């Protein structure tokens, strides 16, 4: 009632509990997708909070959104999309066995990811300077933006629309920091993992037969890009049209 299964000659990367590399690859890819499901639900909770409060305080959210730097946000969006391309090209290079290209594209992805984080740091610094960090998170720099009077065009002051109140604006920034902060943490982890992958690529570990780690890190990286694809319009583009009114 039982029979043995033949085992092929093993590739050094084949783990002992798998029958062959194909099974190992299938498992790795499915595992990363299941993990991404958890990430979708994780960010989903914050998107829920955002949607709820945006619908409750449209004017405050629009006012707060306008205070964010559209150029920096747009540049960051472009940076991330280019990094997604370079990541996809890294996977491609591994698939076709071009080690130098793999290394090049991983380096480019790391550079672009770091650029994103650098720009984010600049944006966070701007919020700090304008006293927009919510509540008493930073002792000594409580949330206390200066509201612009009608006609005042000082970019550091908060320009309120309609029935917006400062407390509601604080709500926006709370959500802004929670969502972009979580996103940034995921980017940092991604860059860290890319560095590890870069090391192993340089050591020649990946080729056409075995490159699943590159593929699955690519999945993670694209996912983090998708989160930003939604964050950008929802956080930065809410009330621009109202400013011109």
């Amino acid at each position, binding site marked *: 009632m039982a029979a043995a299964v033949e085992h092929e000659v093993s590739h050094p990367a084949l783990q002992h509990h798998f029958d062959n590399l194909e099974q190992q690859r299938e498992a790795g890819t499915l595992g990363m997708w299941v993990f991404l499901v958890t990430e979708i*639900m994780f960010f989903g909770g914050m998107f*829920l909070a955002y949607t709820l409060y945006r619908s409750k305080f449209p004017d405050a959210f629009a006012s707060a959104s306008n205070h964010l730097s559209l150029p920096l946000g747009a540049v960051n969006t472009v940076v991330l999309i280019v990094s997604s391309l370079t990541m996809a090209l890294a996977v491609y290079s591994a698939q076709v066995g071009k080690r130098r290209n793999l290394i090049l594209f991983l380096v480019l992805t790391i550079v672009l990811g770091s650029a994103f984080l650098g720009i984010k740091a600049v944006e966070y610094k701007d919020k700090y300077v304008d006293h927009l960090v919510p509540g008493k998170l930073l002792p000594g720099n409580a949330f206390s933006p200066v509201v612009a009077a009608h006609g005042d065009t000082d970019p550091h002051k908060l320009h309120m629309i309609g029935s917006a109140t400062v407390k509601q604006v604080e709500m926006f920034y709370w959500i802004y920091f929670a969502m972009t902060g979580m996103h940034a943490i995921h980017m940092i982890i991604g860059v860290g993992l890319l560095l590890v992958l870069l090391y192993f690529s340089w050591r020649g570990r990946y080729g056409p037969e075995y490159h699943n780690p590159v593929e699955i890190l690519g999945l993670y990286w694209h996912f983090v890009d998708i989160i930003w694809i939604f964050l950008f319009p929802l956080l930065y583009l809410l009330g621009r049209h109202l400013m011109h009114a």
Partner: protein
Amino acid sequence: MSEHIVSLKVYFTIFLSLMVGTALTVWAGLQDFPGPLNVIVALTIAVIKATLVVLYFMHVRYSSRLIWVVFAAALFWLGILFALTFGDYWTRGWL
């Protein structure tokens, strides 16, 4: 190996589409559309961009049905979270 290698041409086409989508979304954000259209336009463009990334950069277009189901399940569950929570908020004023 049952792996499908996506061509460079596809990657670059998708990349260009994403850049166009980004430019479009910034432009649309600066226009004053009537009613809720600003939100609808912004979200539609975002969904299209995300779909392109999922299908082509993340290879779901060439993956097994299981992967597709896994991804669809996540979206469905997110939908449950949103639908039933908003089911509460939207009906609060009714009684």
